């Protein structure tokens, strides 16, 4: 009895000694983040990071209410949201994700080619048949038939955010009629809940076209379309072509990193991709702040090597330097 009591005291003592950091937000980078947190504990055993993957919107809310020490979001916060913050907020890009178009067209196992304007018109309902002349022009020699069934995410998600951002850039019609958002008023199609809901519907329904995260498509061996990028070249989604898109956007990178990199420049760039961010206050209390800053630096530098094995695209090297400088600018008081 005495022994257990002592053991218990030691254990609770140990738990108190560790510095606990709480975060909440995006679900998309969660597999990588949990890998990071466990790897980081090997480096600094005193720091323990808890992360709840409750979705970007919830992450932003909890971060703003200061129930967590850092937030995580797949899309940058809006100017309106930033204006409400008591202390300025830093966006720290951590890795990149991409959205791919997955399809189920009888007779086309793989290698379907699409371009931005065609995707936008399909999701607007203007192109409703697979044998449409514009699709045929992109896929010479392939016989496509039947009706197109559009499948989109029914739940609000960063994936939809990136996808609709891309469609708004390549189609003026989409921009004025639907717009960009984590949840939008879809003109046509069926809604599936989560990546698994969309892929389930696509697999089950011949003639369907939907979108999912690259990682999800890769892990489940799904066929996805090759897309025509801004340079007019067809780019297949891969961690390499996504990093290339980020590198293409580097020239015009704003100081706060709040940038959309869809439809990026560069002949190797995959057009539908985006950063995922950690959100931190630019002024933090000394002790906890120092731990957070140390972790952030590790994540954008050494931590990047864990990205690719998990199918996330690492940050381009030139960007890592810029982000590290930003992290150094966080004030500890």
């Amino acid at each position: 009895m005495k022994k257990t009591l002592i053991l218990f005291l030691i254990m609770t003592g140990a738990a108190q000694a560790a510095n606990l950091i709480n975060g909440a937000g995006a679900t998309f980078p969660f597999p990588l983040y949990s890998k990071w947190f466990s790897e980081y504990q090997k480096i600094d055993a005193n720091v323990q990071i808890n992360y709840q993957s409750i979705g970007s919107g919830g992450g932003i809310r909890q971060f703003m209410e200061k129930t967590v020490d850092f937030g995580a979001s797949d899309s940058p916060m809006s100017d309106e949201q930033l204006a409400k913050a008591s202390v300025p907020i830093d966006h720290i890009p951590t890795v990149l994700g991409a959205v791919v178009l997955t399809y189920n067209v009888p007779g086309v196992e793989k290698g379907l080619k699409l371009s931005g304007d065609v995707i936008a018109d399909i999701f607007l309902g203007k192109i409703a048949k697979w044998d449409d002349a514009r699709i045929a022009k992109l896929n010479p020699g392939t016989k496509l038939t039947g009706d197109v069934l559009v499948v989109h995410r029914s739940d609000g998600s960063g994936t939809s955010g990136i996808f609709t951002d891309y469609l708004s850039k390549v189609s003026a019609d989409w921009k004025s009629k639907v717009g960009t958002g984590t949840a939008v008023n879809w003109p046509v199609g069926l809604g599936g809940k989560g990546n698994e809901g969309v892929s389930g519907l696509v697999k089950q329904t011949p003639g369907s076209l939907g979108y999912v995260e690259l990682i999800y498509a890769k892990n489940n061996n799904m066929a996805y379309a090759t897309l025509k990028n801004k340079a007019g070249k067809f780019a297949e989604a891969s961690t390499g072509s996504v990093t290339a898109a980020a590198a293409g956007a580097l020239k015009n990178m704003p100081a706060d990193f709040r940038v959309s990199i869809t439809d990026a420049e560069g002949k190797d760039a995959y057009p539908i991709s985006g950063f995922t961010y950690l959100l931190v206050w630019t002024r933090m209390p000394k002790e906890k702040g120092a731990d957070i800053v140390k972790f952030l630096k590790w994540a954008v530098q050494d931590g990047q090597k864990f990205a690719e094995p998990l199918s996330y695209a690492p940050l381009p090297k030139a960007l890592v330097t810029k982000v590290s400088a930003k992290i150094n600018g966080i004030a500890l008081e």
Partner: protein
Amino acid sequence: MGLAVLLLAIAFFLYRAAAPALHKLGWSFVYSSVWDPVQDIFGALPVVYGTVVSSFIAIIIATPLSIGVALFLTEIAPRRVGRVVGFLIEMLAAIPSVVYGLWGIFVLAPWLRTTVEPGLKTALGFLPFFQGPAYGVGMMAAGIILAIMITPTISSISREIFSAIPQPQREAALGLGATRWEMMRLAVLRSSKRGIAGAVILGLGRALGETMAVTMVIGNRHEISASFFAPSTTMASIIANEYSEATSDIHIAALVEVGLLLFAVTFIINSLARLFVSRSGNR
């Protein structure tokens, strides 16, 4: 008493959280049917319609099925068979709803698309309910999934009610020369009308609020369509779908208002059903 206070507290909390949407959107929230989070336009009519109709389909299917099952188990089946089958049916209530949803996507929806819906279209295609393209997922899939989910509730309560009927009542009916079916109708069903209605109301309550399984098979489309093949959406599923990623204040408030509306719809349907039961019971 305490329960009433709790209900009022919930309603008040919902009302307060929904206030921004209530003020900005007014009554148009209830009768308009555009749901556009990008432009902050919110109309809840399609979700109310989807909730009510999918639950209604579920009740239409589940009520006769459940009463049949309960009658079979108490009146016809040998006691041992009744116990085993009853246990199996109650097991259906223990399956998590996400499992029903997955089964709906991978088994029910393809079967509806390839077999049931084309069949219904040829047989009953002149009715507006059975027209349009068959996707598999949609109002009908949701109704069927809900029916399966509420059958254990209705049937096990009905079974309890039937077994509470005194044996001499049955013997009297048989003694007067009734056949077995007549005995069930006169001695069992007639005297348990109110109890059955209560069981159905309980099942309806579950159907109205069910979220996960419905979201996975209903197609999530903000549209009112007469066809049961068409995709639709429900109040519970839109909250589950959009709440975690909603960032604008008015969007969050609109979702809470949907919750308030669900509260109201459930309350109204339950009250109507109770009223109906007490009326028919007095006769």
